[in-house]
């Protein structure tokens, strides 16, 4: 059992950081929320905007506004990033009963969002994540988020593998998406990311449950004193 006794409420407009040592269940939490196969929930519930999230397939969750920025984005050879974005956006719009975007409207939307994230036209033509550097992969994830405009963003270790400049670009991209009707769960190992994406609430995850919650200063405290004290508490 990876998650056990975890309780968390995230309101629209809030950014919650979840910190914890390796193996505390951070990634598992992101997979459970996004509906990855192979994670069985034996007890408990997840309610998203009044609906039972766990009863939905991953694509249904996506159409309802749940987005997971992957720690290790997956390669899809032969499928251009631009094409992928269009298929995804239109699949979601269709599921919501909205009209699909025409190619020119879509191109305008993507170009505007891509420019802000420093994603080049060339990158949009390349196959999804194939041959992307670590920084490019993370920027591409945030671009997907910016185009799909989810209402719940889950960022799984988005800072891993980024140098300081890339981190700033990605964080700026995320901050630009903060809005009163969008919630974010930022999962991270290090406090560094939270200097750029300043959270409203910080939670400490240890051995599958949240052992402490607090303001943004909790992150600094963790940085200084480590996770050891909480592991004792959780045991």
């Amino acid at each position: 059992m990876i998650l056990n006794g975890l309780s968390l409420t995230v309101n629209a407009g809030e950014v919650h950081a979840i910190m914890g040592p390796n193996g505390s269940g951070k990634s598992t939490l992101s997979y459970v929320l996004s509906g990855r196969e192979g994670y069985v929930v034996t007890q408990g519930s997840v309610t998203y905007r009044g609906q039972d999230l766990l009863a939905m397939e991953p694509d249904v969750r996506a159409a309802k506004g749940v987005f997971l920025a992957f720690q290790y984005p997956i390669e899809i050879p032969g499928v251009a990033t631009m094409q992928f974005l269009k298929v995804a956006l239109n699949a979601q719009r269709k599921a919501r009963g909205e009209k699909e975007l025409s190619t020119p409207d879509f191109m305008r939307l993507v170009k505007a969002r891509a420019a802000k994230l420093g994603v080049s036209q060339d990158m949009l033509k390349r196959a999804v994540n194939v041959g992307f550097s670590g920084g490019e992969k993370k920027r591409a994830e945030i671009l997907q988020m910016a185009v799909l405009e989810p209402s719940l963003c889950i960022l799984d270790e988005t800072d891993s593998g980024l140098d300081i400049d890339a981190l700033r670009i990605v964080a700026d991209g995320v901050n630009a998406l903060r809005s009163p009707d969008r919630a974010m769960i930022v999962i991270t190992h290090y406090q560094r990311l939270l200097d750029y994406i300043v959270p409203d609430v910080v939670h400490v995850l240890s051995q599958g449950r949240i052992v402490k919650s607090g303001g943004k200063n909790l992150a600094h405290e963790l940085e200084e004193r480590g996770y050891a004290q909480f592991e004792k508490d959780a045991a």
Partner: protein
Amino acid sequence: MADTDTIELVKDIDVDKYKYGFTTDIESELAPKGLNESIVRFISEKKREPEWMLEWRLGAYRRWVEMTEPTWARVHYPKIDFQDLHYYAAPKSMAAPKSLDEIDPKLLETYAKLGIPLKEQEILAGVRRQGESSELDSEGGGETAGRVAIDAVFDSVSVVTTFKDELAKAGVIFCSMSEAVREHPELVQKYLGSVVPQGDNFYAALNSAVFSDGSFVYVPPNTRCPMELSTYFRINERNTGQFERTLIIADRGAYVSYLEGCTAPTRDENQLHAAVVELIALEDAEIKYSTVQNWYPGDKEGKGGVYNFVTKRGDCRGRNAKISWTQVETGSAITWKYPSCILRGDNSRGEFYSIAISNGRQQVDSGTKMIHLGKNTSSRIISKGIAAGRSDNTYRGLVTAHRKATNARNFTQCDSLLIGDKCGAHTVPYIEAKTSTAQFEHEATTSKISDDQLFYCMSRGLSEEEAVALIVNGFVRDVLQQLPMEFMAETQKLIGISLEGSVG
């Protein structure tokens, strides 16, 4: 677990979703069942053929009787009783139509239902529609879609050939094989059987004896054929074989692009299709031949479906000649097909691009032969096999360089993609170089659609089915790009349909 799910999805792959399975209720004239010399005479007479053609057929028949079926391919099926088939079937109303107005409306309706409009003005409209951007292509579609001339073959006869007059102005001959035998005997006699001889193999000999219709193309020297040429083959009648024969000649400096499409009704019995296609490219000529083969594949238990035993070969007969085969194989219960190139002329080039999708209980044994005879000849093979369900998908290819084929070059890439764990992908390359100057490269990969890829796509809003179609379309992209623009979007959709129901 996602793995179990993939297995589920494979179990549910529904080959019964074949969309072209309807039957046309039309009265046919059939030859009596069985094959003997009098049947060969009957066919020849029906087609009002000259004596030399009948003699050629009889010669082939006599060789066929002495031959046995090849068994080296990785396909399994009950022995075919060649005496239990009709070797000729033609709609009765088809006696001698001269124009579209005289064609049985039922036939026109059949082709309309298949999305193949035969009235020239509709073809114009239809093609423009096909040229629009496909849903998977964000770069926007081509507005360059040109016109396509079509030869429609129904069972053993050609129903109509469109745009003939316009093509004739450019000197291009595009007609049914039967008509070519009567109208252009000098060309047919010169080239028929010159690439695939009568006794080449069991099925080629059978075809040579009883071939029904097919297309004939001749493009005169230094002429670029002004439009895409296309033949649409339809097997309708029960217990018949379709034995099409196609012959394409590009004279010096000529260029032609040709596409064939094939469908058949859903039937419990197996239907036999044994075609021969011969291409001849003279000096500086280029032939681009594309196939979208979607014969009925049988149901998911393997009942019914077309047996597709085909011999296709091109001869680069002059310097700098080029022949390019592109095939998209999604149908047939059994496919036995190796479109090949004889690179005879110096500097000639052969290409083979293939997408072969097998599902349900389909068995595919397909590939190519690149035979380098001339100096500085080059060839390229890109094969993408996708196996799902309980199907078997084999790539079999031969690349050979003759002693005198100095500096022969080949690059081969064979990629296989497996969906589920009850299917098989096999790669059987044969490479022979008799000159030390030859450079042959072979690359092969086998992969599975990963659960990671599926989840990634689904977490972005794609259904599992859409995710599979997207990943497969990415996998075959290099080959898809070789198809004429007009058919790319259609083919992308066909790939989606072939894998439809692959999720539960």
